[in-house]
Structures are given as structure tokens and as C-alpha cells.
């Protein structure tokens, strides 16, 4: 078969953008793990390595004005939505130039200008907030949609239920994207719920539930695009379950003893970046060398972000007392 760039159904520029974003996430996370392990970053760190296709596939379906809410494991979602690596990295360092002037850290990254309504340290908390944003779009008469990322574990929180029910009752433009990586911290999904697919929960609200291969960025993009379109057309919310995996521990430092190593290895065989690169190569959109070039460029960007962060001042202790009230 002759390579056909059109075979992937998207303009090459879009495909390349997605590819670059996936690498940006990978490179950012790898570097962050390194830095954290070396003791340079305070706090906790949860890496999204392995889940890049869910982040990028989803955000590729969004407009800049659209919103996301994210999770404790949110770097990838935020990078995919346009988050700046330098300000993110500076925030991970707790510096004055970080997104949150050092007040938020990894679990509390925000960029309201980019529609990033926040990572969140509370499992499940992003869902109702996304519903509110969608309500706001409705009332203000804009075409915005909101996406709420959350994990398989979060699907057992009351907030999940209330948010899906409210969004469906009001037929709001929300796409609930479950990044199902089969574990919540150490606990496998079967110890947390007795269902095969989280997507089946959609029916409890009259909401379509769609399962998608979370390692396939194009599939994710397609499913989310359809959901976004439905939402914008007044068709209400959708529940998307992206089956994925985190390649590392729950947090950096977690040895992950609760996961069989064969399972981890099997998933790693389906590395979403490699899978996408194979598709891109097949379609003649991007060759190995060009891909390596992207990786190198992105790693440089991350290096620059680290330099930026390191060179940034610590916040003034007095600023700890600012921003409590507007």
C-alpha cells in the first residue's frame, strides 16, 4: 500500500501537532520524574506517562475557548490543552514565575486564559466544576464545551454521579473523559467496582457511554470530537472511557508492587507514542528521523523550561498571605 497522508482523516499539520504534544508530555514527565527523584522538586508527583493519547486525543478535539478540568495526574492534560512548559515547570519548583506563583504545585495547575480550570487534588472534584462551566456556556450563549478528565477510581465518588446526572438533566455540553488506567493508587479496579466497562455507567443518566482505546490517539480524538459536536449541538453530555495505563507508579517513588510486571510490560508494548508514530510513518506523514527530531526539540524545550524554573526566584514569603481574597 502506498503511504497516503490523507488516510488518517486529519490534515498533516494537525497530526504533527498531536505528535509533538504527546512527546512534550512524555519529555516533561520524564524530566519531572528525574528532578523529583533527585530531590529538586517538593511535594508529590503523579506522572501521566502511558496516558498521553488520552490527553492529546481529547484536547485535539477542543477549541482554545473550551475548558478542561483535570486531576492529581494532570500534567499531560494541561500540556495538551496548551499549558506552557516553562510556567508549569516553574510551578513544580514552587517558583514565583510558576503558573500559581508557587502556591499550587503539581496538583494545582491552572491557566484560566487557556481554559484550564485546574488540576485537582481531590479525586472526582473536577466533574461538577466542568458541569458548571458548561452551564455558563449555555447561559452566556457561547459555543464552549467543557471536558472533565478523571480516573477509574474517581468514577466511584459521589461527585461523579451527581455531575453526570446534573449534566444530563440539563443537557449540557460536557464530555466526561475517564482515563481508565485500571488502578486507583494500589487498588485494582475489580476491588473498586463490579463492572467491565465504566462507560456502561452512562446509561444510568441517559448519557451515551463510549469505550475507546486510550492508547490510540486518533481513536480518542474521533470519539471525543463526536461527543464535542453533540454537546455543541445541544445533544448533551457524553461519557467516554479511554482504556489506558500508567507506565510508572501511582506517584513518583511508588514501587508499584501491586501490579504484576507482565501486565505492566504488556501495556508498555502498546506505548501510545510508538503506536501513533507507526501510523504516521505508515501514512507517510512522519518518518523516524523526523520523529526523533521532534523528540529532540521537545526535550530541548523541557530543558529550557527547567532552566527557566531554576533561574526563577523563590516567592517572597510575604506573598503567602496574598491571594486569599480578591
Amino acid at each position, binding site marked *: 500500500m502506498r503511504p497516503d497522508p490523507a488516510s488518517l482523516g486529519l490534515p498533516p499539520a494537525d497530526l504533527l501537532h498531536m505528535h509533538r504534544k504527546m512527546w512534550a508530555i512524555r519529555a516533561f514527565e520524564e524530566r519531572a520524574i528525574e528532578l523529583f527523584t533527585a530531590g529538586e522538586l517538593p511535594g508529590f508527583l503523579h506522572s501521566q506517562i502511558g496516558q498521553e493519547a488520552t490527553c492529546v486525543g481529547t484536547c485535539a478535539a477542543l477549541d482554545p475557548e473550551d*475548558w478542561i478540568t483535570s486531576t492529581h495526574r494532570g500534567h499531560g492534560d494541561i500540556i495538551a490543552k496548551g499549558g506552557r512548559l516553562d510556567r508549569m515547570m516553574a510551578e513544580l519548583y514552587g517558583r514565583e514565575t*510558576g*503558573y*500559581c*506563583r*508557587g*502556591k*499550587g504545585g503539581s496538583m*494545582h495547575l*491552572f*491557566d*484560566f486564559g487557556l481554559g484550564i*480550570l*485546574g488540576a*485537582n*487534588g*481531590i479525586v472526582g*472534584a473536577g*466533574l*461538577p*466544576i*466542568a*458541569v*458548571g*462551566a*458548561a*452551564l*455558563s*456556556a*449555555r*447561559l*452566556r450563549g457561547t459555543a464552549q464545551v*467543557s471536558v472533565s478528565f478523571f480516573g477509574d477510581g474517581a468514577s466511584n465518588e*459521589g*461527585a461523579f454521579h*451527581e*455531575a453526570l*446526572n*446534573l449534566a444530563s*438533566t*440539563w443537557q449540557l455540553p460536557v464530555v466526561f473523559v475517564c482515563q481508565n488506567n485500571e488502578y486507583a493508587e494500589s487498588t485494582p479496579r475489580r476491588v473498586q467496582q463490579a463492572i467491565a466497562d465504566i462507560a456502561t455507567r452512562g446509561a444510568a443518566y441517559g448519557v451515551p457511554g463510549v469505550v475507546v482505546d486510550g492508547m490510540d490517539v486518533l481513536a480518542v480524538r474521533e470519539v471525543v470530537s463526536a461527543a464535542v459536536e453533540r454537546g455543541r449541538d445541544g445533544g448533551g453530555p457524553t461519557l467516554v472511557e479511554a482504556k489506558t495505563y500508567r507506565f510508572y507508579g501511582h506517584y513518583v517513588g511508588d514501587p508499584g508492587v501491586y501490579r504484576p510486571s507482565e501486565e505492566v510490560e504488556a501495556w508498555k508494548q502498546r506505548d501510545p507514542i510508538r503506536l501513533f508514530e507507526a501510523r504516521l510513518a505508515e501514512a507517510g506523514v512522519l518518518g523516524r528521523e523526523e520523529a526523533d527530531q521532534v523528540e529532540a526539540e521537545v526535550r530541548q524545550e523541557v530543558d529550557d523550561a527547567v532552566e527557566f524554573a531554576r533561574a526563577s526566584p523563590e516567592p517572597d514569603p510575604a506573598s503567602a498571605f*496574598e*491571594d*486569599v*481574597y*480578591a
Partner: protein
Amino acid sequence: MSAEPRSLTYREGLNAAMAEELRRDETVLLLGEDIADPFGGSYKTTRGLSDEFGAERVRNTPISEEAIVGAALGCALTGLRPVAEVMYVDFMTLCMDMVVNQAAQIRYMSGGQVRVPMVVRTQGGAGRSSAAQHAKSLEAWFCHVPGLKVVMPSTPRDALGLLKASIRDDNPVIFLEHKLLLLDPYAETVPDGDHVVPLGVADVKRMGTDVTVIATSRMVRLALAVADELAESGVSVEVVDPRTLVPLDEEAILASVRKTNRAVVVHEGFERNGFGAEVAALIGNRAFDDLDAPVERVAGANAPIPFSPVLENAVIPNEARIRAGIEKVLGGL
């Protein structure tokens, strides 16, 4: 907006505040359980508002307190000024994450990127045999949480003016009404036009020289009645109503105590770690040399609210207990 002098009850004051703000500012919306017409809210506070402003802006919700407040927050972060109603303050236990971890902290956590203009209206208080899950007064919890403002009106005028100010405020405001005041037919004239009472300013509801009573919400009414009574025996009681518990008008309280040298704090919430503890600690610290007697607290007992009127009356402050508190700081009359 009417320029006629209006006489309003507490409930009408709240209703007018919401109507006026809905009219004035199209970004204002209300959401909550059973707030829409014809029901108009379980205490009828929102009556007529969905009829006037439509079901899009005055929205009935499912029974989902966490999603109600979460949705309000999502609105507040994206350009609207939501006013959420949580039917009873006891049900705030179901949305504390959204209030405390989210709404109160997002501005701070984001390094000041965003304003969070939202109000959570709820009502508390005992006196109707509503029992332990429908009669608490949990203001102390909210006062403890940085990032929240906490408002407790005691009169129709304040209800109107403080709610308007709360809706215009750019921070999450917990607005605590009292169920007996909502049912109270007492009406008073409110100023013409746009009556806004700024947050953070106490009101001396009665001037006096012998003792300061700091009272909140319905307890202001009781304190005033006791002050009237004591005036007959020649005791001059000053009644200070903080109106907003956060930000607290500390100077107004301290100024009064420095004048009277004696203080009683009266509130309906549980005494232990209640609002009165904070006020007593404040006075004890900042007016140490001015105090002629220990600060007394007259507050809800450290017991759940019982159902029977006889028992309920035993656990919430009443005029007799307030009077006894005052007499105690005066050294026994």
C-alpha cells in the same frame, strides 16, 4: 428599582435582593433545590423569581448538594455570579469539599489568577422542632476556612443590603439565614434605591455603656429584648451585631468593649469552638487591660438539637440565659 419607601420582612428583603441583582446584572443566576415557582423555595425565599426571570436563570436542581455548589463554582470561574441555595445548613456537610477545598482555595491555589464571585445561601437555627439534622448553626466551620466570607444578617434591612453586597463580592460568600427570621412577619422600612450594606462592617444595634453584647443572627433580636428589659433596671447594654463574621469588624467590637469593659458573646451555634470562642479570644487578647470581668459566652449547648420543644428550649440560648450572662459579667445584679 423602586424609589418608594418599602417595608419588608427578612424574607422579602432577601427576595428583593435577589430580584434586584438578577435585574441589574445578567450574569447573576440562582440554583438550588425547589427554588423555582410555584414552590418558590422551602422557605419561600425565592418566590416569584423563576416566574420573573425564567427557568434558565432560576434553576431547580436535583438533590445533589455537591454538584449544586460545584456547578456554581464552575459558573463563577467562567464569568457568572451564581447564587446557590443549600436548603439547610446541615446539608452543607454534603458539599464541604466544593466549598472548602475548591471554592475557598482556587483563587489562592492559582496564585490569584481568578476571582470566585459566588454566594451559597443557606439557613440554619433551631426553634421549630426541626431536630438534629435541620437546626444547626455551623457558622464557626466556615469562619475557620480562609478564603470564605461569612455573613449572618439579623434584620430585614441587613438581609437586603448584605445579600446584595454578597452577590457583588468577588469571593465565595457563605450567607447564613435563620429559619425563624425567615418566618418572622416583622417588617421594617428599607432605604430607597440600591441599598447595599458593605461586608465587614459591624452595626451597633443599640448603644449602651455598661456591657457589650456581641450577638449574631436571631440572637441579636433576643439581645435587644433583654437590653430593653435591663434598661428598666438601669443597666445600659450595648448590642453589637457583627453582621459579617468574616471579615470581622474587630475594631468595632474592641471599641465597644474598651468603653464598657465587659462583654458577653451570644450565638446559637454550639458553644465549643463556636464563633464566641473566637470573639472571646480576640477580646481577651486585644482588650486585656480593659476587661473588668471575664468574657461570657451564651451559646448553643454542646449537644445535638433535640426535637421536643421543651428540650430544644433547653439547648438554645433564650432571653433568660442571655440576661443571666449579662448579669454575670456585671457581677450579679
